[in-house]
């Protein structure tokens, strides 16, 4: 089974702190994604990466950056955390089989910024 592992289930940080959210997948997927999930808004794409050292902005990249130094690892960075970044963060990875791309999700990190 594909496994997408997020390093922390819960995090509490203070405003202005630098925050790292780590994600590792074990299926050699090219594509990796970071979403945030907020009630009533569904999932919104922050950044994605389609190869090592490659990254693309999603719908809401402001206040975030990412790093993909190795294929299996995709990190989300909050340079200076703010209270409006309190959210559930979901990492996902995918492979492409023709047009049938399928996302596999990690179990999420609930981040609270105080």
């Amino acid at each position, binding site marked *: 089974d594909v496994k*997408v592992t997020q390093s922390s289930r819960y995090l509490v940080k203070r405003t202005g702190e630098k925050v790292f959210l780590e994600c590792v997948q074990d299926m050699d997927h090219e594509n990796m994604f970071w*979403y945030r999930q907020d009630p*009533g*808004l*569904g*999932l*919104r*794409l922050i950044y*994605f990466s389609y190869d090592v050292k490659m990254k693309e902005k*999603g*719908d809401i990249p402001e206040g975030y950056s990412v790093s993909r130094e190795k294929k299996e690892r995709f990190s989300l960075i909050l340079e200076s955390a703010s209270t409006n970044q309190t959210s559930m963060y*979901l990492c*996902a990875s995918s492979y492409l089989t023709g*047009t*049938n*791309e*399928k*996302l*596999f*999700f*990690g*179990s*999420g990190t609930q981040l609270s910024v105080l």
Partner: protein
Amino acid sequence: ELKVEQNPLFLSMQEGKNYTIYCNYSTTSDRLYWYRQDPGKSLESLFVLLSNGAVKQEGRLMASLDTKARLSTLHITAAVHDLSATYFCAVANAGNMLTFGGGTRLMVKP
């Protein structure tokens, strides 16, 4: 810009009843997904719909796609408590990125 709307956002139903969740989207797409999320858990893929008129069924859930109407439905037949979860639809845009609907929280009461 692709927009995806689900309704209802919240659904409480009795066991044994039937109901439908709707997913509307604003621009042409060739792929639509349905996901399930249990409380405190991550999203689990249910269905991928790739063409107009596509219908997929698993157990008490059936998903269909009408690309002309830009509408997908997730139909629940004879609901059971185990189906209680939040259901998301997601639509792929031309750049291969997914846009998610807001989710439908389903509660099936015994």
